[in-house]
């Protein structure tokens, strides 16, 4: 037997009473949530306290940091766009179809996520320099194609892409998992090919997921450090991105500059993430 006053649908309580009873809920939920928000804000506050505006400006004025900034923006964006190009079809295939080896492919996609970053960088380096019957990928790209990769900007993009794409695939797969395939099936019964159903039905519905995947890929690429250091190196004005700048400044005890560059990365990340989210919201609406 249920007491009608205890029912959540009950309308017998006054609005004031309902508000009073909701207060503990919001207090607990908000309290727990704010711990994390507070931690991040405290981290940023500590960074700001450690450095000064002059230090921040001085860091921004350095040509090598400006170069690292340009390279970071460009390489992260290229890695994120490439990731979404790869992640969308791969996520769709994994979500929609049951085929032999699907479980294996699903697992392989996760390898860059679980692999220690330095190992990923080392693996890339080995791949490009492994002699196969006297033939070497890097040697061929450098000498025959004229497009050297190792210790050049393509290595930065490839290192970022390798990790970022794995996250993007995971996001796109969840996105397509959550979209009911019924609409695509209906479209096919009305004469659409599988390709048309994908392009005209599935993809427009996955737009928010694609924005989220791009955002995650870009953010992962920005924070990537280990594989870049090993595969692309940290040559000033050439392959140095902001994450390696922080490492290099720390290595020589230049904490002020390291913190200033870290804050610059925070500003960059916030700006790009907000832009992407606004873009996503605008397009969806």
């Amino acid at each position, binding site marked *: 037997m249920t007491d009608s006053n205890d029912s959540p649908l009950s309308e017998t309580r006054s609005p004031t009473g309902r508000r009073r009873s909701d207060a503990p809920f919001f207090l607990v939920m908000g309290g727990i949530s704010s711990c994390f928000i507070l931690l991040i804000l405290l981290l940023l506050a500590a960074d700001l306290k450690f450095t000064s505006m002059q230090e921040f400006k001085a860091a921004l004025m350095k*040509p090598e940091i400006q*170069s690292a900034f*340009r*390279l970071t923006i*460009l*390489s992260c*964006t*290229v890695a994120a*766009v*490439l990731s*979404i*190009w790869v992640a969308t079809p791969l996520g769709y295939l994994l979500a929609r179809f049951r085929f032999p080896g699907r479980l294996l492919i699903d697992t392989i996609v996760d390898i860059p996520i679980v692999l220690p970053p*330095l190992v990923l960088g*080392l693996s890339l*380096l*080995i791949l*490009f*320099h492994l002699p196969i019957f006297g033939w070497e990928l*890097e040697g061929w790209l450098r000498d025959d194609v004229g497009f050297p990769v*190792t*210790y*050049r*900007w*393509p290595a930065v*993009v490839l290192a970022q892409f390798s990790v970022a794409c794995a996250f993007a695939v995971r996001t796109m797969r969840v996105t397509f998992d959550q979209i009911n395939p019924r609409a695509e099936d209906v479209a096919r019964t009305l004469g659409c090919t599988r390709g048309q159903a994908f*392009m*005209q039905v599935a*993809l*427009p519905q996955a737009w928010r997921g694609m924005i989220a995947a791009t955002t995650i890929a870009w953010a992962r690429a920005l924070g990537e450090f280990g594989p870049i*250091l*090993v595969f692309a*190196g*940290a*040559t*000033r*004005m*050439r392959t140095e991105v902001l994450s390696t700048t922080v*490492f*290099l400044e*720390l*290595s*020589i*005890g*230049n*904490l002020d500059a390291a913190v200033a560059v870290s804050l610059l990365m925070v500003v960059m990340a916030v700006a790009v993430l907000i832009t992407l989210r606004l873009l996503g919201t605008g397009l969806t609406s």
Partner: protein
Amino acid sequence: MNKMIPIMIGSIVALGVMGVMLGRVGKRSSIETGGTSASGDPNQPDLMLFCAASNRAVMEAILADYAGEYGRQVEVQYGPSQTLLSQLEVSHVGDLYLPADDSYLRMASEKGLTDEVLPIAGMQGVVAVKKGNPKGIKSFDDLLKEDLRLVQADPDAAAIGKVTRSTLTKAGLWDSLNEATTAYRTTVSEAANDVVVGAADAAIVYDAVLHTYPNLEFVELAELAPTASQISIGVIHTTDQPVAALHLARFISARDRGLKHYQDHGFRVSGGDLWSDVPELKLFAGSMLRPAIEDTIEAFQQREGVIVDTVYNGCGILVAQMKAGQVPDAYFACDSEFMEQVPDLFPEPIDVSQNELVIVVQKGNPKEIASLRDLTKEGLRVGVGHEKQCAMGWLTQNTFREGGVQQEVMKNVTVQSPTGDMLVNQMRSGSLDAAVVYLSNAAGSGEYLDAVRIQGLECSIATQPYAVSPESANAKTAGRLFALICSVDSQESFAAEGFGWKLSSDTGKND
């Protein structure tokens, strides 16, 4: 039209545009950082230096000078020493490797990844504390106090950690320090950073690391005195531009170029050559050594891009020249006796090879000479080295004396020459019946002459020492020439010329 199509096309166009922009990032850096190469060849590829991240500040200052002086670009890969070592092991690219300390270069050398090693600077293990030493650390026991937070670099990952553990283990102090250590950090910089941010009160670091930490100072402890380490730069084995690589390595290790910056950045420097774009190395060498070393010297000149001005002569004459004021950078004597005559100039000779005196006779030995005693035969025309002008002459007289035939043989001596080669030539022209020369002098004339061994007289064997003048402006370069003389190829040349090898095979490396 499906709205996805323009977005997809747009993203491809954007990728293309960004690819072009990325390509220009590298090109722009080339324009900003330099011009043409030192050799004047604009097509010469950039040098690639793998450099420990801890050396970045000093290296950027040195490379700025290098670019200013020679317009040569250097691509530097900064990173942890072990990571860099793994990179060059896998990729087999690059020209120079400069790790945080010598232990990594030894590893690289053992793996055959590096060749020449040029010493640069030294560092000393110390205790880093905040300015003013607020915890009052003065002795080793102060590090063991309970209220002190001590951090160290990981003994398995960082050089200072490794050398601290090894030093203190020998002294029986490691266990107590290990127990008193609050945390181990991956790199020496992380340990110093902990003191800066207040996460630790003290850290064991290299003194040179603290140059960039204005808020820290260091305390030297007697127990840490043996933790001194050396920084050196190695030439990567697979480099295809050794002359350019060594040019830069010499610039970095020159006392009036790179070492000045190292000193300014808190490193301990000593020695180092004086800078010269193309150094001219003066080598005095006994004539007997010529066939054994001339190819090696040529190879050295080609690889290093230096000039070796070698003066071959009888060692007596060379000693006289040195006593008259001519001081070469290095001296390779025919026998220790002639090195011992210039101890002030060359205090630390190293014995390299041996050569024995033999009696050379005409092919088929028509005069039937089998021993020193046979040189006393009536009417025999004998040639020997000049006692005052060459080691061979001095050694010959010693041998005659020891053999008890000096006076009788000297009656038959018709020629006294400053070099063994001249005696061999006279033998071949038929103007002598026998001559006492080094086996190496006769090595190339087996077709025309026979050699008779002198039995039972130890004094007939000459030992050839090599020494570098400590006053030389090119002492390190002369040291590298010595390393090449000690190489396997060079040892084969010595053997082919009749010399015996006296030096252990690993001597001469890494200097």
